[in-house]
C-alpha cells in the first residue's frame, strides 16, 4: 500500500464544497460570536450584579464543557424540548453560542484594560455611556483584544471540525468520506491537516496586518 494523496486531490470539487461550508460556518460563527460576546461583556459590566452573575454562570458552563458535548446535546437533545434543527442551522447556532462565550471573556479583559480614569475623563466632559463605549473604550481596547480575538478565531476554525459528527457537510466530514470511499483514509486526513493549516496561516497573516495597521494609525504622524 502506497501513500498516494492523488486519489484525494482528484475529488477537488467535493473538497471545495466542504471547504466552502466550513468557511462560511466559521466566519458566521466568529462574527456572530464577536457581536454577541461584546453584548454579553457590556451587559455584564454595566448591567448590575444580577445580570453579571447570570451571564457569568452561562459563560462558565459554555467554557466548562466540551464543544462536542454541547453540539450533541443541541442536536440530539434538542428534539426532547421541541427544538428540531437541521445539521447546518444546529452547527451554526452551536458554534456561535460557543464562540460568544469565549469572545465575551476577551472583551471583558478588554474593558478591564482601559484605565478607569480615561472613562472618568469622558464622564466629566458630559459624554453618555454609549458615547464613552463607542468613542473611548472600544477604540482603546481594540489593539489589546485583537491578538486574542484572532487566536480564538483560529481555535474555532479547528473546533468546527466537530460539526462533522452531526453530519454537517463541512470540510472534515467531506474529506474523511472521500477517504473511506477511496480506501485512502490516511491521505485524506493528511490533506485535511494541510487545508486547515493554510487557513490558519492566512488568518494569522491577516490578523498581524490588522494589528500593524491599527498601531500605525494610532501612533503615526508626529
Amino acid at each position, binding site marked *: 500500500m502506497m501513500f498516494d494523496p492523488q486519489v484525494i486531490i482528484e475529488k477537488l470539487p467535493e473538497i471545495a464544497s466542504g471547504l466552502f461550508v466550513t468557511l462560511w460556518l466559521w466566519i458566521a460563527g466568529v462574527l456572530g460570536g464577536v457581536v454577541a460576546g461584546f453584548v454579553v461583556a457590556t451587559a455584564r459590566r454595566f448591567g448590575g450584579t444580577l445580570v453579571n452573575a447570570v451571564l457569568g454562570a452561562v459563560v462558565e458552563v459554555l467554557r466548562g464543557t466540551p464543544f462536542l458535548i454541547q453540539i450533541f446535546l443541541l442536536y440530539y437533545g434538542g428534539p426532547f424540548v421541541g427544538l428540531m434543527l437541521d445539521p447546518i442551522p444546529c452547527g451554526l447556532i452551536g458554534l456561535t453560542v460557543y464562540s460568544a462565550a469565549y469572545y465575551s471573556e476577551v472583551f471583558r479583559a478588554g474593558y478591564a484594560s482601559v484605565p478607569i480614569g480615561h472613562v472618568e475623563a469622558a464622564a466629566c466632559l458630559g459624554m453618555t455611556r454609549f458615547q464613552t463605549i463607542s468613542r473611548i473604550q472600544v477604540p482603546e481596547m481594540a489593539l489589546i483584544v485583537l491578538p486574542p480575538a484572532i487566536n480564538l478565531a483560529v481555535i474555532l476554525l479547528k473546533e468546527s471540525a466537530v460539526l462533522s459528527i452531526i453530519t454537517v457537510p463541512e470540510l472534515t466530514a467531506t474529506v474523511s468520506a472521500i477517504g473511506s470511499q477511496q480506501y485512502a483514509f490516511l491521505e485524506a486526513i493528511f490533506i485535511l491537516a494541510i487545508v486547515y493549516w493554510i487557513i490558519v496561516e492566512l488568518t494569522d497573516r491577516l490578523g498581524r496586518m490588522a494589528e500593524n495597521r491599527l498601531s500605525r494609525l494610532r501612533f503615526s504622524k*508626529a
Partner: protein
Amino acid sequence: MSVPAIAIRKLVKRFGETTVLQDIDLEIPEGKVSCLIGPSGSGKSTLLRCLAFLEEATSGMITINGEALGFFEDANGRRERLPANQIRTVRTKTGMVFQQFNLWPHMTALGNVSEALKIVRKVPKAEAEERAMTQLRKVGLENRAGHYPSQLSGGQQQRVAIARALALEPKIMLFDEPTSALDPELTGEVLNVMRDLASDGMTMVVVTHEIGFAASVGQQISFLDHGRLLFSGPPAEIFAKPRHPRLEQFLDTYLDRGASMLA
C-alpha cells in the same frame, strides 16, 4: 452677595463603614482660587471627586452656580437623584484635571481637546478643531496638536489635559493633584498655565501638595484632616502665626518642598 460658584452643604461620604468625609460645609466664591490641602487620606481628593460627581456623596448637597449636582436634598433631608441628562449638563459646568492626566491614547492632542465639542456639543468638526486649537494655544501647545499622548512629555500631557477640560468653556476648573505625577522640573510649566488661568479670573478648586503654589496663588485655603474640614480662610490668615497646631505639624513636613518661605 452673589451665588457662590460652589456650595457644599453637610456633605458626608462613606465607603462602607469608613467615613471619608464628615459634614463638610464650604462655599467657594466665584473667580477665586481655592486650594484644598491636608495629609494623605484626609479626604481632599474625595471631596474634589464629589464636586466632579465621580463619587456620589452619601448625604448632603452640592450646588454648582446654584444648580444641584446629582442629588437634590430638601430641608428634611429627603434626597432625590436628578435625571441623568441634567447631571451631565451640570457636570459640564466644571472641568476636571486628573493627577494621571487621563488623556485618550488613541487620539492626538487636538483630538483629545476637540472630542467633547464634537460629540457632546455637536459642533461641526472644523469649528470644533478651531476652538480646540485656541485652547491648545492657551496652554502653549499649538505646535503639538498632531502629537499622540505617547509622544508628549508628562508636563505637555497635563497641559493638553487642561486644554481638554477647558474645551467646553466651564465656569469652574477642578484640579486633583495636577503636578503630583510630574518630575519636579516639569511641574513649573503646569503651575504657570494654572497661574494664567487664575489671573483670567477662572474659579479654581485645587487639591495640591504644592504648598508654595497654594500660598502664593490660592485665595482660599481649606485644610482637611481625617475627613473633616478643620478650617478655611485666606492664606494670609491661615498661614499667619500662630498657626493651628495640626497645620503647623503638617507644614513641618513641607519645609523643604517650597514652603520654606512660610517658615
